[in-house]
């Protein structure tokens, strides 16, 4: 119940943030610019629109999660409203989870708005509603949930600027970590290979949520990949949130 109240308040607070609308504006602009890019290509124009549109949703969604998420907890501490909150009969993890769910709700609404613009643009090109795009968007949302958890984790012990930087690094590492596999293949068997393998499995692999190419090209996605990826997103989020709660519990505000 407490989590729900904090989540709704966080949502109200987030939708009042001007930066959210600025990002939404640029996201919409980027989706619409795909139309111009499509004019420059030779061949399948709808493909360019889908690619740029999905990339914009993913990129600006991540920016929203990072820029808003990193300020959420810090603002409460800086403005000292945290004293009022923690003096209430409320546990610290409820506060943190409330903040998390509030931002997830905000992102859901933003993602829905961007998806409507995107699907409308695709519709004007293909004259059909491409529902399969929603699968890629759903996994973008799972990725955003994880990024939100990461932003909250950093926000619980660091300043917004540093937290944004760390979260951005997490995002970049998450999208490049798959390339470690190639490196591991080239390392001769031994302790170094084992260590590299452990690092590879611990590092986030955000490519597990990337079904954009498959959806755009109409490729078959194995159901177990969809299932495992969703479970991976859920478990990684649980891991990050547990870490955030652990850090937040140990934090002294005075």
């Amino acid at each position, binding site marked *: 119940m407490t989590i729900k109240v904090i989540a709704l308040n966080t949502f109200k607070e987030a939708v009042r943030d001007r930066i959210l609308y600025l990002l939404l504006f640029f996201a919409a602009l980027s989706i619409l610019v795909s139309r111009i890019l499509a004019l420059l290509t030779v061949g399948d124009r709808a493909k360019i629109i889908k*690619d740029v549109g999905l990339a914009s949703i993913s990129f600006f969604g991540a920016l929203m999660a990072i820029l808003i998420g990193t300020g959420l907890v810090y603002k409460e501490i800086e403005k000292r409203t945290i004293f009022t909150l923690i003096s209430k009969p409320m546990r610290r993890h409820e506060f943190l989870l409330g903040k998390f769910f509030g931002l997830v709700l905000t992102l859901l609404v933003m993602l829905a708005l961007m998806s409507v613009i995107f699907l409308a643009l695709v519709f004007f090109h293909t004259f059909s509603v491409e529902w399969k795009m929603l699968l890629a968007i759903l996994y973008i949302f799972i990725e955003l949930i994880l990024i939100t958890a990461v932003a909250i984790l950093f926000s619980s012990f660091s300043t917004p600027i540093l937290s944004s930087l760390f979260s951005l690094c997490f995002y970049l590492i998450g999208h490049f970590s798959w390339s470690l596999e190639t490196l591991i293949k080239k390392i001769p068997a031994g302790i170094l290979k084992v260590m590299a393998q452990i690092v590879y499995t611990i590092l986030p692999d955000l490519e597990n949520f990337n079904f954009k190419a498959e959806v755009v*090209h109409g490729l078959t996605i194995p159901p177990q990949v969809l299932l*495992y990826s969703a479970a*991976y997103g859920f478990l*990684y989020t649980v*891991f990050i949130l547990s870490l955030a709660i652990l850090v937040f519990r140990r934090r002294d505000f005075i």
Partner: protein
Amino acid sequence: MRKNVSLILILCLSCLLFMGLKLEIDKVSRQKIPGSSIIYIPSGKYLKMVTFGFSSLMADLVYIWAIQYFGNTTIPDKFDHFVHIFSIISELDPRYVDPYEVGALIALYDIKDVALSIKLLDMGFAKNPDLWIFPLEAGHYAQLYKKDFPLAREYYKKAMDIPGAPDITKRLYANAAFKVMDIKTAWETWLEVYETAKEERVKKIASNHLYNIKATVDIRGLRSVLEKYKAKYGRYPDKLSGIVAAGLLLFIPKDYDNKDYVYDPKTGDVKTAVIPWKR
């Protein structure tokens, strides 16, 4: 304290589970269209616009990707967009020499298309007209793999005219000129190489070529006169001096070392006394 213990347990459990899941996901192969993201980009010019000043870095990344992509033996149609991919790199970083050279090698050895290989080197030369390496390599490929000496000669000439080109370029040009029987150019160029060479080894090479050119011209002339002699007298002369006595030639030429050519009166064959390269 108990709360923290349970939280740490959740932390460890979720960590182990997502690590296991990651390994499981890796086991399932997903359908992929290699290179699809690049193929649809119309040109490197437009890609350059969105690199925000990091076009050189983007060129590096596309190049690294291309190397992995073309090295993948499981993609049967990987060469379909070969030129397109290398033109993207060329647009992003026109001064990046390696992609043109490596691309040319891939075209030569993997695609077995000499023309395509030369096309890539041409692309590099068009973007870098001050770099002699592109026409030199193109000439080398044209000579070795196409046996197209007129084309090789053109490329060597281009390379030779660029300041800083290595000395060997002039020698390759002179050799190609001889192969297309442009005797005058070949002689003049080899003579220039001989006169300007600082190393004895190079002087010797030039001298051997000059010997060979002179011998080729002389022997060709002697053979022609010998055929005229045979047409008139029904046989070849007993000695080469016979053609001078018959008034068909003013004098018998000597080789570059001022020695006589070897003549066989039975066949009318004229040869040099030594092999030009073993003088």
